[in-house]
Every structure is written in C-alpha cells, then in structure tokens.
C-alpha cells in the first residue's frame, strides 16, 4: 500500500485543474474528485481526502462555487483575488 498524498497536495492539484479549465469547462466537485483519484491512484487518494481538499480550497477562497443550473467549482472573479 502506497503512502497517501496529503490534503494540501490534492488541493494544489485541484486548483491547477480548475485553473486550466477556467472559462472553458464547468467542473463539478465530483468531476474534480474523479480526476484526482485518476491522477494519484485509488490507493493514494480517497473520496474523503478529496472532500477535505475541496473544503480547504473553499474556506481559503482559492476557489469558489458557481451556480449555472448546477453547482460547479471555479476561480473567484478577478476583483476578489
């Protein structure tokens, strides 16, 4: 069993993904979670870890939720940075 990645590592990878997709594709939290599990592997990255990483990103304000028919993860508007 490999060592788990840390919450901060997952949060950084999530932030990178959300930044890459900004303005191109709406990402739901589950899309981001699935991408992280694929990136790090199921043995290193769990759904619970992703949940904690999303919470960290939201509480810090690095990412925010948007609502466009459904709820998505995105970057805060430039004025709020």
């Amino acid at each position, binding site marked *: 069993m490999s060592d788990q990645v840390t919450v901060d590592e997952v949060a950084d990878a999530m932030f990178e993904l959300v930044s890459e997709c900004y303005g191109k594709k709406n990402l739901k939290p589950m899309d981001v979670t699935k991408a992280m599990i694929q990136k790090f592997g199921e043995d290193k990255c769990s759904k619970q870890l992703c949940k904690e990483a999303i919470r960290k990103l939201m509480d810090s304000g690095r990412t925010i*939720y948007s609502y466009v028919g*459904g709820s998505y993860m995105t970057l805060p508007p430039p004025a709020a940075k």
Partner: protein
Amino acid sequence: MADQKRETPRLDQLESGPWPSFVKELKKSRKNPMTEDLLGQLERSYEDKVVHWKHGGLVGVKGYGGGVIGRYSDVAAEFPKCAEFHTMRINQPAGWFYTSTVLRKICDIWEKHGSGITNMHGSTGDVILLGTTTPELEPTFQELTAAGFDLGGSGSAMRTPSCCCGMSRCEWALYDTMALTHDLTMTFQDEMHRPAFPYKFKIKCSGCPNDCVASIARADMSIIGTWRDDIRIDQDAVRAYVAAGTFDMSADVVDRCPTRCMHWDGKKLGIDDSNCVKCMHCINAMPKALRPGTDRGAVILIGSKAPIMGGALLSSVIVPFLKIETPYDDIKEVTQAIWDLWAEHGKNRERVGEFIQRIGLGSFLEQIGLEPCPEMVMQPRTNPYIFYEDESENAEG
C-alpha cells in the same frame, strides 16, 4: 426613479380580491427603495409577460456553496435599486418554532442589510430573505450566525431538511420528526453547505401517513411515520360514531379503505391488519375509536420531485419499516449509500428518482446493498416475459 412611487395598475388588481395579497404586503415595505423598484419591475413583468430576473452566478458567502441564490435584473437600467436582488435561505428550526424575539432579530438584520422582505417559509422550509446586494451578503451572514442561525441548502446539495411539527403538537406523530430533522441537519452539514451531488437532494420527515409536509411528492427522500402492528380499536367508540349519525360507516370508512381490509356488521368493526397499508383514512375519520399501533417507526421512500427537468415523480418505498431511534445510524447509512452511488454515477441535473428510473430499481438496490421486497413494487409488471435465472441455470446444469 426609486425616489417616487411607481405606477402599478396591474399589480393593484391583485389587491382587489378577498384573499391575502402579496402586493399589499410589498407595498407596506415600499419605504425601502429596493422594494419600490421591485414593484416597478414586477409591474413591468406583468406588462411584458416575461420574468425579468436572471439567477445563479458566483454569489455566496466564503466557504459555502449554498444558501445564497443570486438574482440580477435584466432591466437594471430602469430599476437600478433592484439590479442585484439576491435571496438568502436561512436554515429554519425543526418544526418552525420561534420566539417573537428571534423573529424580530432576523427582521432587524434583514432591514439593515437587505430589502426587509421575507418569505416565511419557502417550499424547502427555510426562512427566505428576499433581496440584497453582493457586498451585503457576508455582513448579513455574520450577523445571522452571531444570532444562532446558519444558511440552508441550495444548488446541487442536500437541501435543508424539514419536518412537520411532530410530537410537539400532533397526537399522530409516530416518531420524533423534529429530533430526527435536527440530527440529520447537524450530521450532514458538509453535504448541505458544499454542493457535491449531481443535483439537489431534499429530505422531509413526516410524523405519520397524513404527511403534512407532503414529503411523498416533494422530497427525494421521504421519512414517513408508520406502525407495523395492529390498529387499536375501541368498539364502543366505533358504535358511538355510528349512533351519533355523523357519517355512514360503510360509505365513508369501509368502502374507502384502499385495500378493502375492513368489514362492518352493524355492531363490530373488523380490520385485516395484514392487508392494511396504513393510509390512516379510517383513523382520521374516527380518531376517538381508532388509533395507530404501538410498534412504531417510519417508512423510507425515495425519488419524488417537481417537474423542473423532467416530469413530476412520487416517492416509492425503499425501506418498508425502520425503528427511528437515536443515533439514527440506519437512516444515515442508507442515505450515505444512496449518495455515494448517485454522486458517482448520476448525470448532471439528474435527480435520484430519475437516476433510479435510468439504471433500474433492481440494479440500484443491489448497489446500495438493500434486499428487494414486495412493498417496493409500485405497480404490477406489464411485461409478460419473465426470466427466472435460478430455474434456467438449474435446467442447463
């Protein structure tokens, strides 16, 4: 302009009937310029036969993905004071009990930071605070939390659980709806404030089959009080109802039983409880003579929704009977299993009822680890081709 009264001839007609009028109530708040422009925009909508609100976007409070619904006017140049008119959903107390002091506090906060207009309560059950601007969201949230309130759910999240008044005021409550609702709300804070589902998920708790919060039609998960032993009958009280001549026992009670499990010989009422579906019609008709049994719990149903994306659905049974006892681990386990499956495999904006229809109830049950049972059958099958897996395997062997 907001500093003058806007003419609202169409809205004025809505004050003319004998019933309560939201226009009349709005006009009481027109000292607030936001409300004056709101009345103007609403009049314009009646004139144009078009809603002039856009909703959604990026508004919210830090860390939360729910509780604030962004609203923007698409005729903001004409009605600048309600250019931004965001809604805040506030988690209501279970059973909607308040003191007047608390209500006054909420109203004071909202008059300070918003339009002062409230909706007590929205269809999800929350206190709805209507109309504020983006800069006022965070200060409003801070004051509300200091007063002991929190935002409710919105977006693709668990919506604020709601319930009937339950044991606090109702003799029919078969479990403590308020306690369960409060517990589920506190347990699933993350699921309510941080949307992670394909779409919304509503939980409503009704204390008895009368289902006063209409959970069977309005909640993705309905938790409805029921019992599994026999209806308690007081035969003397039954005869007293008949003697009083207030209703016809056969026409009003026995013949209205959906499973025809009752019989009345003119002296004694009989009930075949093994065929009773606990609809409560007879108990409602003769509350002094009939009472629910004493082995009480709840039935869990799943899948209802209003027709937003697809057609309306009613909930169907997924757990026929469950004892409702703290710490409610059974309910939480079922809920979590459903969420895990639906969150991973549900399509965007697909409610859990639609998800079950798409993958099939059998597959759904198998994946969340529940055994099928007859109560889950909504209607007899219409497909005559039945494949008996065990028999065919034996035949091949």
